[in-house]
């Protein structure tokens, strides 16, 4: 599949890497944005293959944001797929005033907030998906147990935050977006982003204090 998209000129999912030199990062971003514009234009003309290219490029990043807000893995899959379906059905209304991924993240965050509100109204039977910790092959067993325990506590601490607070911390810590980008996604001021981040971080630190 990846070969197919390389041939079509699509850039594969790029995960924000903090260690990458900033100038290189900037250059990559411009290439990605130009490509996005072209793909969006094709999507608006009804080209499903171009949309497939956009999904291939962003599905992991959207999934990461959704996983950070919606705890259950299966729920997160459903929500992330719904995000792309919504993006597809609304792409004709995308005017390019913001970047495509900002627009996409806005749909993702709104979808997650809606999902959590619905979930609150209709409590789920089981919500243990995020308790599955990632594979930790080749590590000291005591480290694995310790980190598994820590992750469990981390997820529990995340659950104590509102979806809006989760969204800011995920967009910042996982996606590495700037306050300006986050404020554009959430439709609030940079000051609000800063104060929400401060609150979320403080809350997580308090909840995790015995394990840090």
């Amino acid at each position: 599949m990846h070969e197919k998209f390389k041939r079509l000129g699509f850039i594969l999912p790029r995960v924000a890497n903090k260690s990458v030199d900033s100038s290189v990062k900037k250059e990559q971003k411009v290439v990605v944005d130009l490509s996005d514009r072209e793909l969006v234009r094709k999507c608006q003309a009804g080209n499903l293959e171009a949309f497939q290219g956009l999904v291939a490029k962003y599905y992991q990043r959207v999934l990461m944001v959704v996983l950070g807000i919606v705890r259950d893995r299966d729920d997160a899959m459903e929500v992330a797929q719904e995000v792309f379906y919504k993006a597809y059905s609304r792409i004709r209304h995308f005017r390019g005033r913001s970047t495509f991924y900002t627009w996409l993240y806005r749909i993702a965050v709104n979808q997650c907030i809606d999902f959590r509100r619905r979930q609150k109204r209709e409590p789920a039977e089981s919500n243990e998906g995020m308790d599955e910790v990632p594979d930790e092959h080749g590590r000291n067993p005591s480290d694995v147990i310790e980190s598994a325990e820590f992750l469990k506590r981390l997820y529990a601490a995340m659950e104590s935050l509102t979806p809006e607070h989760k969204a800011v911390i995920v967009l910042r810590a996982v996606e590495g977006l700037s306050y300006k980008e986050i404020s554009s996604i959430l439709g609030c001021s940079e000051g609000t982003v800063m104060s929400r981040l401060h609150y979320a971080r403080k809350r997580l630190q308090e909840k995790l204090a015995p394990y840090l």
Partner: protein
Amino acid sequence: MTMDCKSVMEILGAWLDGEIGARESEAIRFHLESCASCRAAKLRLERVEESLSAAVKAQASDVSWPQFWSGVERRIREESERRERLWSWLRPGSYLRRLAWAVPLAVVCLLVILLAEQYFFRWRLGPNLSSVAAVESIDGHGFNLALFGEDETNTTLIWLFLDEEEDEPSAEVPVADTTF
């Protein structure tokens, strides 16, 4: 510019995010060099965010592309089929075909409703015939009769008009001759 621990803790996160001005940023760096407790706080903050990021990334990378795309494609296909069904229902040709049986059906329904109303329910959908008053008149020889009947109050009025010409003595009636 010097900063105390409390001020540093307030903006430590923003400083790590690179969202603090150069002057404040320098002051925090200077403070961290000399303050072990703020350095520890910085490490705690970094650990929490790195753990969250690593966990979420690991979970997302477990999801394969075909698995993900099939879900998105299914939604798009279902929506497209739904639109197709809606469009075929609204298409002018089939719309007129449907009208062929829809018009008589509507007429029959209307008749059924009106009959049901008249005989069973008395919803008073149509004109209220029971309150209609009727005036009839009968012309007779030398008189006129008019009848007014009103069902609701069970009232009947009768007018009798006598022909005035007949009542008055005719001018042409021969006057008795008194000359005998």
